[in-house]
């Protein structure tokens, strides 16, 4: 087990393994996303209250899930890098931050587009919107700190500390904002017993959620490969790779 981990967490093996995995993730992401979009946009019935405009949910909800999921990945990877000094974990954390920030931004923009016809305003100071906005600020802080420190490994460790502090703070921020104000519609999926979403809408939503996860896996591997090359540019294997 440990041998396996050591082998594949070495930058060189990661580089070739990731190169093999990327097409698999990429193609399955594309297929699932097309299927999800087809079911979501054409097959699923219009909502009895919100009409057609609810369909943006199929992008909005997975993007919002991803925004939180990637923050957790980033913090856990950063923590692993901080404790065990595994280079690969630092690379994954550093490559995840911009993707997570993009998903957060996407969730905010699609939310605004949906909010205009539904609530009559692009933006309201509702609890979930506000905590998503603050999550975006936290991401931007991590990215800014990461790029401000020149030494890459120091930068990774510093942003890992910041990401972990953020993880402790996210629930506090989330609940304090909820206490402050709430208008957003309640969660409709997590109630396991009887979800208040119809199965014809749930299937495309879950398809899209898996597709977004695969998209993240694809992009993070591509970014991590580049990051590995950049960080290891003085080593033999990278120079041989570049020469060939």
């Amino acid at each position, binding site marked *: 087990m440990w041998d396996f981990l050591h082998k594949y967490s070495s930058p060189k093996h990661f580089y070739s393994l990731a190169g093999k995995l990327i097409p698999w993730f990429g193609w399955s992401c594309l297929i699932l996303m097309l299927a999800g979009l087809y079911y979501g946009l054409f097959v699923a019935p219009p909502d009895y209250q919100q009409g057609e405009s609810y369909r943006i949910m199929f992008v909005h909800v997975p993007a919002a899930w991803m925004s939180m999921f990637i923050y957790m990945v980033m913090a856990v990877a950063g923590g692993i890098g901080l404790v065990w000094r595994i280079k690969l974990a630092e690379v994954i954390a550093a490559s995840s931050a911009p993707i997570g920030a993009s998903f957060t931004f996407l969730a905010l923009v699609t939310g605004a587009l949906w909010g205009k016809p539904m609530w009559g305003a692009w933006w309201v100071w509702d609890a979930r919107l506000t905590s998503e906005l603050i999550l975006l600020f936290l991401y931007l*802080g991590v990215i800014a700190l990461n790029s*401000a420190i020149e030494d890459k490994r120091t930068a990774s460790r*510093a942003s890992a500390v910041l990401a972990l502090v953020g993880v402790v703070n996210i629930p506090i921020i989330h609940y304090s904002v909820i206490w402050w104000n709430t208008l957003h519609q309640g969660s409709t999926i997590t109630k396991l017993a009887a979800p208040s979403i119809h199965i014809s809408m749930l299937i495309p939503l879950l398809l899209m959620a898996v597709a977004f996860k695969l998209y993240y896996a694809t992009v993070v591997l591509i970014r991590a490969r580049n990051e590995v090359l950049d960080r290891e540019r003085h080593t033999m294997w990278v120079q041989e790779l570049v020469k060939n």
Partner: protein
Amino acid sequence: MFAFYTLLKRDLTLAYRHRSELANPLLFFLIVISLFPLGISSESKALQGIAPGVIWVAALLAAMLSLDSLFRSDFEDGSLEQMALSGHSLPVLVLAKVLAHWLITGLPLIIVAPFLGILLFLPEQAMSTLIVTLALGTPVLSLVGAIGVALTVGLRRGGVLLSLLVLPLYIPVLIFAAGAVNEAARGFPVAGQLYFLAALLTLSLTLSPFATAAALRISIS
């Protein structure tokens, strides 16, 4: 424990020798607050409504701007490195420095806040709540801010970055503190918000020195 008192005494003495710098965050606090009546309206009704938020936002900014002095000079002359190498527990030393910093910058804010409340026509029944929220909240600002300073102390231009890192983390304090003062101004009970602030203080008091120490070790490595 002895190291804690020694460092506390040293930082307070250093601050006392640079008395003129002590007034700066306080003046900033004062000026920001006097800008609001000029920018919004001099009517007591309008100011009364925004007073708790304005005072707290100004306190947040004043606390953040004064943070830079927390580790800067010690980092530049190398004494921070010596502290990290000294064999004393770094989180305890950090706690001493943060306490000294709060006594220098946070405590004066609490003392002048009632006068600023009068300037903004804050109702008298909210005055005691304002003081209590500041007493519970400003230590949290110093403790959480210390993590941000520790991360950016090695950078030449850390100022703007620091605000980007620290201000989102200040939001819960702002929500509960300004909320409590608002409620008190309307004559509602505020015990709930005060308990939340006390919980935040306890949490940051127990966790932040460790995070700050870890961040300092990264910055001086």
